[in-house]
């Protein structure tokens, strides 16, 4: 009896602290080695001029950042990236919420539909992009084929000739891949809403549209904030789709492609690092806006 009581006695303060530290240590080291250290060294190096083709790494201060502001290629890639972010986030959110609402209604075979929905997300981005490259192919692509047979176009189009069409088509490929994640996050949020709230709303006099606006939307806003920030971050980091479909083409070049080209094609390491830091800040700020705004409005969580 005494022995059990002894065991149940709380650990001494110090021992408890050591135990807690023990639990945290692995995560601390892994995150430190894989996230924090590289981040710090990237920030650090972005103030120097690191170039394997040149001797020495002189300190240049904000030079890299200043040059970025006036680089027309960088400016172009920023514009492109913001367009991608706008299109893909809208597409993913609208389609994802729509898919989640439909799945939430389906009673029979939901798990199969869910599996089918997730498929594009499970494909490696490169494979996904290659599939769409065939769809968009000017001479034998499905897109031209379908539009021709519907009579919407009269001859095969080279889709990537027009910048905005190209940006839009690449956005579709990215949204197609990422939409399932939004759908699943929203579906989980929808399923957490108690059924009797809808019944109460029905009796209170809500039609389907008001039900969605007044009950569903506020209650999934937490999930929506998560979905929005992840789709924003992934859209800022868009690389594979644009690279596979249109290579280094300036019309469709993203900031990440620009980083890759500066750092690894032109071997201006520090320049690339400075740009990647800016890209990180941009996606952080944009997603922080949603998260903070939506969390402030959801008083109930």
């Amino acid at each position, binding site marked *: 009896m005494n022995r059990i009581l002894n065991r149940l006695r709380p650990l001494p303060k110090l021992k408890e602290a050591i135990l807690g530290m023990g639990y945290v240590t692995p995560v601390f080291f892994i995150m430190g080695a894989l996230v924090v250290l590289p981040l710090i060294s990237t920030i650090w190096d972005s103030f120097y001029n690191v170039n394997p083709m040149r001797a020495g790494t002189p300190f240049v201060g904000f030079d890299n950042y200043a040059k970025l502001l006036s680089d027309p290629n960088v400016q172009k890639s920023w514009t492109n990236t913001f367009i991608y972010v706008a299109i893909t986030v809208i597409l993913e959110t609208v389609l994802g919420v729509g898919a989640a609402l439909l799945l939430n209604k389906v009673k029979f075979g939901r798990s199969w539909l869910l599996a089918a929905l997730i498929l594009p997300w499970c494909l490696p981005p490169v494979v996904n992009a290659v599939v769409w490259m065939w769809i968009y192919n000017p001479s034998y692509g499905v897109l031209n084929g379908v539009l021709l047979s519907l009579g919407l176009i009269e001859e095969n189009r080279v889709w990537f000739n027009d910048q905005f069409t190209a940006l839009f088509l690449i956005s579709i490929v990215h949204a197609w891949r990422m939409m399932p994640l939004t759908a699943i996050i929203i579906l989980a949020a929808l399923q957490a809403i108690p059924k009797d709230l809808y019944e*109460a709303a*029905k*009796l209170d006099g*809500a039609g389907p549209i008001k039900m969605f606006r007044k009950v569903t939307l506020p209650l999934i806003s937490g999930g929506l904030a998560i979905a929005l920030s992840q789709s924003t971050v992934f859209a800022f980091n868009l690389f594979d789709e644009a690279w596979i479909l249109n290579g280094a083409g300036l019309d469709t070049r993203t900031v990440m492609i620009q980083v890759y080209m500066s750092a690894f094609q032109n071997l201006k390491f520090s320049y690339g690092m400075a740009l990647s830091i800016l890209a990180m800040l941009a996606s952080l700020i944009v997603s922080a806006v949603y998260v903070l705004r939506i969390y402030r409005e959801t008083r109930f969580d």
Partner: protein
Amino acid sequence: MAKLEISNLTKNYGKVEVIKGVDLTVEDGEFVSLIGSSGCGKSTLLRMIAGLEDITSGSISIDGRVINDVEPKDRDIAMVFQNYALYPHLTVAENMGFSLHLRGVPKNEAKIAVEKVAETLGLTPYLDRAPKALSGGQRQRVAMGRAIVRNPRIFLFDEPLSNLDAKLRVQMRLEIKALQKRLGTTSIYVTHDQVEALTMSDRLVLLNGGQVEQIGTPMEVYKKPANIFVASFIGSPAMNLFDGILHRDVEQTFVTVHGNKILVPNCPKLTNGTKVKLGIRPEHLKYAATDSGNNIINMKVSMTETTGAETYAYGHFGDEAMTIKLNGEDAIKSGDKISLTVKTNLLHVFDYVTGIRINN
């Protein structure tokens, strides 16, 4: 304010019949409870009235107008849910005013209505809080308030007190009843708790397996249960039921149970020698002066429980289990052999096979 009429109502889920032809009329301003064990169809019936479940056949009408195909939102019925179903993203005031808001009632008007109801329910200090910051009883009141603000034709309650602790349940029971009397709104109340049903209702509807077993005032169902189901459902502890044989001679009708002769009220329909079930409520058995003679039950006590005011004794008469309810002061212990007596007019005789009540 409305009269509700339900006629020959049925509900099937696929091939399973949940409601099997229910007829019920609820008068304007009446408080009617639907009571039965879980799965008896009482909640389904309530949800059909609300319009949350489809009707397979039969009809529901309010003030003579059939509402089978009327959308829930157009039925002008308010419902209080078991889990309150408060909107977590809205404040108490917004919850209560939600239906007015949906109906496009001007903000000022809605605010006045909400404040008025909040005052009667003692919710004024909580109007700006989120439901999460309220206790169970307060949430219950908000749910009630939301129903009242609308001033609907009918209130539906779906086991509204089952999530509250015992003390609060008694308090809310009284409050709901007082409020309903004051508002005079037709109310239908689903519960599995016979005390709630008996204390609150003008009339009770006992449901079993999707069918109505009996409809009556609390006293009617207690004093004259229509059958064995009602007899054993209403009353606590449950009614004792003994197997016996009915005898009749010129002067008297009696039932023999384990050799004892128990005089029963007249049972005109039965012939001499019929097998019957004799029902005796535990609270109607009293200590007898003798251990033989008419209307004597010899009980061997095997266990006792006391609540202070009352003592329950469990034991056997012959080989049949029985329970009695005695005054808390009565000294009784397991192993005791006691003789009890019961008044003839308090006895219930049921058909052995169908379970239907035979005596008047």
